[in-house]
């Protein structure tokens, strides 16, 4: 069993800066032991974007840190545009100004700017992001919309905002009129590893979040997306439970560690220029931009090969999974979450384990 790997990455996520105006308590970027938290000069990024253009990369996702903190952001985006690529930006919104928003719109190449919004007001949004951050996020969204830049918002569900989810979704989809939003959950990555006791949902909150978000997804059809977190878990767990009850055939991707398809089409670069498979796995260093050929790393890096080989690992090899009645419908989920909890990527993620969730008193929604 192997995954079909594209000849070159289709998308590249770039942590364009290690600086941020906020210090959110569940930030997945800060507090990893491996990265050097420093910024590369624009010349390094522009040279790298030239390489990406030569490889036929279609899209660059600019993250950080906070991308809008870089004064030279328009020059970096020029390098993306010049190399016939599109881009997206992940932001906290607070530093977005009219001038930059106008520039983004004028490029015609911006797929979306995603702004993090965790609550319907400062009490729930600012609790882990800091005073004034709600106002900054909403102001940023409004600025982008005024200039016609495509926007979305990302709601990170945590201990302090579960009860506020209906109002938050209403604010974003109804009051502000965003076309769609994404939802995930704070996980034990980065800064959250030391703040988990304050930040992570309790099991009962997780249940509540799942049920609430499934209801909201029905109320706003097609407008709430999730690839991880309570909404994604709720959807897949319902599907798994139906399959188990019906004695269905194994899912095509079930029974093995297939939970992450990213290494077949995507790659990432840390703010210090180190190439990694994913920004959530910053310790897996494959090489360095402008020293190593990205095309070469993509096809030959043992780090990437190792991650891609996960798909051949049967879940039944793991003692906890061996007797699980969901095993044929399970993918083992995210390797970064597995690493955060267990220190290894070639293992199912305990956080997304349905059997464990049920054993802890949870129920399939």
């Amino acid at each position, binding site marked *: 069993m192997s995954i079909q790997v594209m*000849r070159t990455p289709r998308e590249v996520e770039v942590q364009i800066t290690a600086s941020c105006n906020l210090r959110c308590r569940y930030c997945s970027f800060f507090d990893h032991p491996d990265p050097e938290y420093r910024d590369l000069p624009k010349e390094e990024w522009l040279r790298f974007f030239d390489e990406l253009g030569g490889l036929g990369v279609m899209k660059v996702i600019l993250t950080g840190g906070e991308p809008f903190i870089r004064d030279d952001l328009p020059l970096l985006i020029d390098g993306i545009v010049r190399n016939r690529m599109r881009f997206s930006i992940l932001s906290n919104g607070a530093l977005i100004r009219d001038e930059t928003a106008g520039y983004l719109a004028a490029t015609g190449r911006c797929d979306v700017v995603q702004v993090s919004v965790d609550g319907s007001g400062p009490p729930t949004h600012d609790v882990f992001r800091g005073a004034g951050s709600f106002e900054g996020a909403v102001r940023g969204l409004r600025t982008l919309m005024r200039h016609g830049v495509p926007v979305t918002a990302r709601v990170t569900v945590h201990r302090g905002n579960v009860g506020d989810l209906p109002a938050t979704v209403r604010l974003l989809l109804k009051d502000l009129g965003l076309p769609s939003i994404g939802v995930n959950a704070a996980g034990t990555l980065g800064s959250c590893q030391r703040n988990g006791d304050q930040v992570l949902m309790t099991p009962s909150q997780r249940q509540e979040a799942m049920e609430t978000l499934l209801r909201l997804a029905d109320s706003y059809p097609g407008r709430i997306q999730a690839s991880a977190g309570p909404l994604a878990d709720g959807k897949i767990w319902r599907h798994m439970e139906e399959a188990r009850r019906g004695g269905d055939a194994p899912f095509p991707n079930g029974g093995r560690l297939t939970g992450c398809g990213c290494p077949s089409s995507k790659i990432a670069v840390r703010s210090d220029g180190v190439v990694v498979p994913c920004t959530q796995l910053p310790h897996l260093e494959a090489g360095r931009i402008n020293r190593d050929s990205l095309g070469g790393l993509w096809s030959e890096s043992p780090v990437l090969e190792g991650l891609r080989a996960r798909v051949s690992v049967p879940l039944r090899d793991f003692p906890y999974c061996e007797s699980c009645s969901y095993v044929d419908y399970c993918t083992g989920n995210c390797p970064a979450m597995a690493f955060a909890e267990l220190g290894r990527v070639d293992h199912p993620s305990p956080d997304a384990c349905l059997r464990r969730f049920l054993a802890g008193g949870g129920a399939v929604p």
Partner: protein
Amino acid sequence: MPDIPVRNPIAVLREEFDDWAVLFNPDTADAFGINPTGVVIWKEIDGRRTLTDIASAAADRFSEVPDTITEDVAAFLGKLAEKGFIGQGVGP
């Protein structure tokens, strides 16, 4: 369908897998999947070769070539033109 097709200079050819490629227009985000024959034809479009030249070059690259190769290439070029990946050359 243009007689001497010219590539849209913004278009990007991504050969993703052995048997599949994508033509991508970063300005519009349009993507068009093409097979290996389509890739050969795309690479023959240089603003000088005519439809007949391109069909002939494509025929040289494959062992089993249908009698309708020129019509097939014309139809493919027509699709590329419709999607904005090629245009018509406008003389010397």
